[in-house]
C-alpha cells in the first residue's frame, strides 16, 4: 500500500522565524530598516537579525554604538519622518539606560500630539534566564513595558507565532515591543525547549494582536502563561495528565492588547487558575491576570483560590541551584497545579 507523502513541512527556530519575517517586510517595504548593537556582521547576539546584512546591506542593517538612548531616540525621530525602524535592545535588562526615550516619548508622543503624529517602530529585545547569566542579563520585565501606556507588547512562545506576530508588529503604525525569550530561540549554543521550533510557512503572514491561544485544552485547571513558560507548561501538563489532571494552557502571546475574554472563558470552564510567569512575582503580570479573574467573580466561579508562580521577588542569582530555584521549573508547575486541585474556596 502506498500513500502520497506530504511535502515535508518546514520547521524553523524562533530566531529564524523572526529574521525571516523581518526580511520579508524589508523586501515589501523600503521604509523598514534595522538598527542596534551587533545586528550587522554578527547577525544579532540572539540571531534575530541573522542574514539581514548580506541581503540588505549596511544602510538598512545598521550597527550602532553602545548608546541605547541615542539610537532609541533616533528610531523615534526616523519613525516620525515616515520610516519604520526596528531597533534592537540586546537584552531587556538594559532598558534602564534608555527607558525615557521608550516610555516618555515613543509611547506617548502619538497621544500627546492628539493623534497627529505616528511612530511606527518595533523594539526587539531578548528576555529570560535559565542559562546562568545572573541578575543583569536574565530578566523578563515585560510587565513594565505593559504597564506604561502606549506600547503594544508581544511575547511569543514559538516560531510560528513569532513570524506572524513580528510581521504584524512591523506593519503596525504604533510602537511595538517584541520580547523574545533566549531559551526558545533555537540557538545552537543554548539549551532550549524544542516545542518552540515548529512549522512555519514560507510566505508572509500576519497574526492578530490581542488573541491569546489555547495551546492545550483541558478541564481541571487553566494555566495562563506566555513565552518560554508555555513550553514548560506543556511538559508539565503531560506529567499532570499521567496523574489524571487535565490542564488547559492559555498562551497570552500579546500583553497589550490583552485577550481578557479567552482567559476568562477558560477559567470559567475549569474553575481553577494558575498564572505561570518568569517575571518577578509582585506588581506585575501575574497580579494582573489574577486581578482580571477577581474582577469577574460575578461570572466566573472559582473552585480554588488563584495561584501564581513567578520569580519570588529576588534578583536572578547566578549559581545553578539558586537560579533553578528562583525561576519556576516544570516541577514547580506540576506541584502548583496539584496544590490547586486540593485547595478549596471559603
Amino acid at each position: 500500500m502506498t500513500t502520497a507523502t506530504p511535502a515535508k513541512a518546514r520547521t524553523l527556530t524562533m530566531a529564524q522565524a523572526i529574521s525571516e519575517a523581518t526580511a520579508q517586510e524589508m523586501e515589501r517595504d523600503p521604509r523598514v530598516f534595522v538598527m542596534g548593537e551587533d545586528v550587522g556582521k554578527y547577525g544579532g547576539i540572539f540571531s534575530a537579525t541573522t542574514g539581514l546584512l548580506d541581503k540588505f546591506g549596511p544602510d538598512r542593517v545598521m550597527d550602532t554604538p553602545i548608546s541605547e538612548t541615542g539610537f532609541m531616540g533616533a528610531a523615534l525621530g526616523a519613525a516620525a519622518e515616515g520610516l519604520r525602524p526596528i531597533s534592537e535592545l540586546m537584552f531587556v535588562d538594559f532598558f534602564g539606560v534608555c527607558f525615557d526615550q521608550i516610555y516618555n516619548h515613543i509611547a506617548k508622543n502619538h497621544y500627546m500630539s492628539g493623534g497627529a503624529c505616528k511612530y511606527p517602530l518595533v523594539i526587539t529585545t531578548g528576555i529570560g534566564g535559565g542559562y546562568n547569566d545572573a541578575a543583569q542579563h536574565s530578566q523578563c520585565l515585560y510587565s513594565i513595558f505593559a504597564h506604561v501606556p502606549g506600547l503594544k507588547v508581544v511575547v511569543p512562545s514559538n516560531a510560528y507565532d513569532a513570524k506572524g506576530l513580528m510581521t504584524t508588529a512591523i506593519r503596525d503604525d504604533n510602537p511595538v515591543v517584541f520580547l523574545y525569550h533566549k531559551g526558545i530561540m533555537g540557538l545552537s549554543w543554548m539549551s532550549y525547549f524544542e516545542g518552540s521550533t515548529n512549522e512555519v510557512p514560507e510566505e508572509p503572514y500576519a497574526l492578530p494582536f490581542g488573541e491569546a491561544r489555547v495551546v492545550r485544552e483541558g478541564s481541571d485547571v487553566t494555566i495562563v502563561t506566555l513565552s518560554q513558560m508555555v513550553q514548560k507548561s506543556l511538559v508539565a501538563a503531560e506529567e499532570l495528565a499521567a496523574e489524571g489532571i487535565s490542564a488547559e494552557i492559555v498562551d497570552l502571546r500579546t500583553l497589550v492588547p490583552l485577550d481578557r475574554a479567552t482567559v476568562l472563558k477558560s477559567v470559567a470552564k475549569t474553575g481553577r487558575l494558575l498564572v505561570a510567569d518568569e517575571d518577578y512575582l509582585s506588581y506585575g503580570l501575574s497580579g494582573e491576570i489574577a486581578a482580571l479573574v477577581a474582577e469577574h467573580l460575578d461570572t466566573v466561579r472559582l473552585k480554588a483560590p488563584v495561584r501564581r508562580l513567578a520569580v519570588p521577588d529576588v534578583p536572578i542569582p547566578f549559581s545553578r541551584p539558586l537560579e533553578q530555584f528562583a525561576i519556576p521549573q516544570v516541577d514547580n508547575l506540576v506541584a502548583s497545579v496539584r496544590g490547586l486541585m486540593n485547595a478549596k474556596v471559603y
Partner: protein
Amino acid sequence: MDATAGQLLWMYEKMIEIREYEETMARVYLEGKLPPKIQKGLAFDIGAGPVPGEMHLAAGQEPVAVGVCAHLRQDDTVVGAHRPHHFAIAKGVDLDAMTAEMFGKDTGLGRGKGGHMHLFDPAVKFSCGGIVGAGAPQACGAALAAKKLGRDSVAVAFFGEGAANQGAFHEALNLAALWKLPVVFVVEDNKYGISVEKSASTAIASNADRAAGYGMPGVLVERNDALAVFKAAGMAVARARRGEGPTLIEVKTDRYFGHFQGDPETYRPKGEAKELRQHDPIPALGTLVRDLGLLDASSDASLRERLAARVQAAYDFGRNSPYPRPEDALLHVFAE
C-alpha cells in the same frame, strides 16, 4: 554669510512676535491663579486659571530661535525642549492651534493632550518635550531619515546648557558625527538650569568646546544677538545640507522671566533680569533695520501693531475654543 534684507526683517518681525507672545502669556497665565480666587492658604495655584500647569517662557532668548530658523525650510525638522515657544513660532507652527493647546482646547495642536511642553506640528516638522536632553537623539533620527530618503533637509535640536550634561547629549553627538548626519545642535546658555548656575553644573565654560570630542565643529556665539546667531547657524545648516555632518553651537543668551512662571527666583541676584533687559536684542535689531532703511518709524509701529493683533487673535482663538469631552482622554493611545 550675510542676512538679506528679507531675512533681517523676518528675524526682527519674528522676535517681536515671540516677545509679544511670551509677555501676553505671562499675563494670561496669572489669570485665576492668585488669591482670593484660589484655595485658602495658597499664594498661587499652578493648576488654576485658563492656562494651568507649568509655564516656561523664553522672553530674551529670541535671537537663538530666529537666528537659526531663518535658515530652515518647512521640511527641515526642529526638536525643542521644555521652553519651546520661541522655536515653535520661528519654525512657523500654527499660532492659533499652538495657543489653543496651551489652553487645553480641542482645537489645539494635540487636542489638549500635550500642553505647553508638548507641541507637535507635523506640517512644519516641529516637536518638543519636557525631558531635558531627550530631543537631541530624536533630531538625529530625523536627520537619519533625511539621509536615507535622499533629501537635503536638516534637523535642529535646541536645548539648554543644563541639558548638555545629560547622557543623551553625548550619545546624540557621537551618533551624529559618526553617521555624518545633517543635524545642528544648538545649546541655549541662559546661565541657569532652574536655580543651578552653569558654573555649578558644567565642568567647562563653553559647551562649544565639547564638539571636538566628537570631531565636529563647535561654535560659541558670545552675544545674545540675532545676527551673530544667524551667521553661526548659516554655516552649520549649510554644512549639514551639503552632507558634511553636524555642528554644535552654543549661544550665550538671557532669560528674562523665572525658570517657570511662579519661580521665586531667590537664587538669582536681585535686579539681574532687569539688568539683562538693558541689552534687549530686539531694539538692537530694530535700530539696525531702521538704519539700513528697511523700515521707517511708522512701518515699524504698524508692524508691531499687526503682530500684537496676530498674537491677540491666537489667544482669543485659544480662549474661545471648546474643551475636548472628558472621555476623549481615552482616545489616541494607539493609532488605528
